[in-house]
């Protein structure tokens, strides 16, 4: 219970010391096959770190290990404590997770779905208090979802679903949020809407965001820190300008690209080889 960031002593320290997620030589194996190897990364609140890399590089597996879904080896510490020693409840108080393809159960109302985020703050057999419903309502208002409260989550469109899923992670009120491909299923308009939302929340709420993303240009526009994963390993990491170079992309994606400077952001433009 001392690991719960909601507890007074810890939350006091949160005001002075910024909580850090320290990942050191983290490896993940599934069926004895190593999927993620030697990943090291430090994340502080207020930062947006983005994991990029070709398909099968182990990006989702890495996030699942951070979320506690998959077992991992190596060091995974939050404020000096090993996350894997935490109870499910305590871990969820630190780390929120939005899956790549979240489950939206038919017949579940948006309000109830978002309120599931309060699970981490409730004892197993307790019911939600008026504070939990108030928190849920606040998040729904903040994300302009309040008029959707009564809607069936299964009936929402792609963009609405993504916002509802993020709302649930916010109701969980954990300082670290993992987003697995938050924009894959969205058109360019909704993609931007969701990314702007994440960016605003990270700044306003002092949340650390770790996301995976496919679109290289977009990942460079929104995030502070890029990690290029390839074959389970972190190959290059740093600012978008450092990571998004045609050499790096050629080496790991096996494709020729031009990098164009777009108002300070590197824009990745695939080049079609003449047949």
């Amino acid at each position, binding site marked *: 219970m001392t690991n719960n960031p909601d507890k007074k002593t810890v939350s006091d320290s949160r005001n002075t010391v910024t909580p850090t997620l320290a990942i050191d030589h983290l490896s993940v194996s599934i069926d004895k096959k190593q999927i993620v190897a030697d990943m090291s990364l430090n994340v502080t609140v207020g930062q947006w770190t983005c994991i990029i890399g070709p398909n099968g590089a182990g990006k989702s597996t890495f996030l699942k290990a951070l979320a*506690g*879904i998959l077992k991992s080896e190596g060091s995974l510490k939050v404020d000096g404590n090993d996350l894997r020693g935490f109870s*499910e409840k*305590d871990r969820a108080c630190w780390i929120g997770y939005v899956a790549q393809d979240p489950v939206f159960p038919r*017949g*579940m109302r948006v309000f*109830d779905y978002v*309120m599931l985020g309060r*699970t981490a703050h409730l004892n197993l057999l307790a019911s939600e208090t008026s504070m939990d419903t108030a928190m849920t309502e606040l998040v729904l208002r903040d994300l302009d979802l309040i008029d959707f409260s009564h809607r069936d989550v299964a009936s929402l469109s792609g963009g609405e679903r993504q916002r509802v899923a993020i709302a649930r992670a916010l109701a969980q009120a954990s300082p670290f949020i993992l987003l697995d491909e938050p924009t894959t299923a969205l058109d360019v308009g909704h993609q931007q809407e969701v990314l702007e939302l994440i960016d605003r929340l990270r700044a306003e709420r002092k949340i650390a965001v770790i996301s995976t993303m496919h679109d290289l240009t977009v990942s460079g526009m929104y995030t502070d820190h890029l990690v290029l994963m390839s074959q389970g390993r972190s190959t290059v990491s740093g600012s978008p300008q450092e990571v998004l170079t045609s050499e790096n992309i050629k080496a790991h994606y096996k494709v020729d690209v031009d990098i164009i400077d777009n108002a300070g952001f590197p824009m990745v433009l695939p080049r079609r080889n003449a047949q």
Partner: protein
Amino acid sequence: MHTATATRISRKTWVLSAVAVCVTLIVGVCIGAVAIPPGDVIAEIGNHIPFTHHSTQPSLNSTIIWQLRLPRVILALVVGSMLATAGCSYQGTFRNPLADPYLLGVSAGAGLGATVAIVSQHSVAHWVLPIASFAGALIAVALTYSLGRSALVGRSSTALVLAGVAVANLLTAIQTLVQQRNAEKIREVYAWVLGRLNTAGWGDVRLVTPYIAICLIVLLRYRRVLDIFAVGDEEALTLGLPVNQARAAVIIAASLGTAAAVSVTGLIGFVGIIVPHILRLIVGNSYRVLMPLSLIFGGVFLVLADVIARTALAPQEIPIGVVTALIGAPFFLYILGSRRSADLT
């Protein structure tokens, strides 16, 4: 529904439920070989405190009400509540709208457990039956769950039901074999295979009510947790739910309750699927609403089914298990058909 609130049971629904229970109780006591006017029933019940009903000169109606009808109606109420709540609990933990104690083989397992207990002793101590049933029930649910997950194609909920049918058949076959080898006990055993409420006296009610009450209280407390299961194990885990521990607790409580019910009434199928499903159509899929209402209307349903069992072919009685199967099997097929394309995953 215009304000932003969590799903909960409205006051209107609570009142309707209370009325339904009262009316059902009175109907259940009134109807039978001797019709008793509702006024007499209410007066009679008003005059008594349960379990201290040895008045000096009991009237005929009084005897019928207290010795025959009321214990039977109460037993149906308790068992129906348990079966419907257990069905609802299995549906939540397995994320499968077709789960039911009967279809998962839990009832058959409990039946086998009790049969073994009956034949292996000269006179079975009363309290042994629920425990033997419980052991059988747990073995059955474990078998069904592991078969449904591994042998058959991953996520389809029909796979679980198919596994349940196979397990139920296997256990029933073993039970029949055990029964055959012990012909002298055959009558005692046979009464249950079809499900019965007719030998019910206060003794049966007293035997199972404590088990069932505890299980129902535990299961009701898990109703919020059942809603978390709906998002799948991985997401539930990241929300802070100790998934395996919670699932085990729900399955054990639901199986223990089912076993207790089966140990006195025998195999009564489909209550756990009919009642929650009708409720889903009316109040939606949230277990925090479904669980209490399944408890209430499971009881109501079984009392009414028992009235049909007593009256349809009067003076003969139809076994209650036959009545619920006659209503339930077509209903099950209907759900299977209507859900096939929608959300059977």
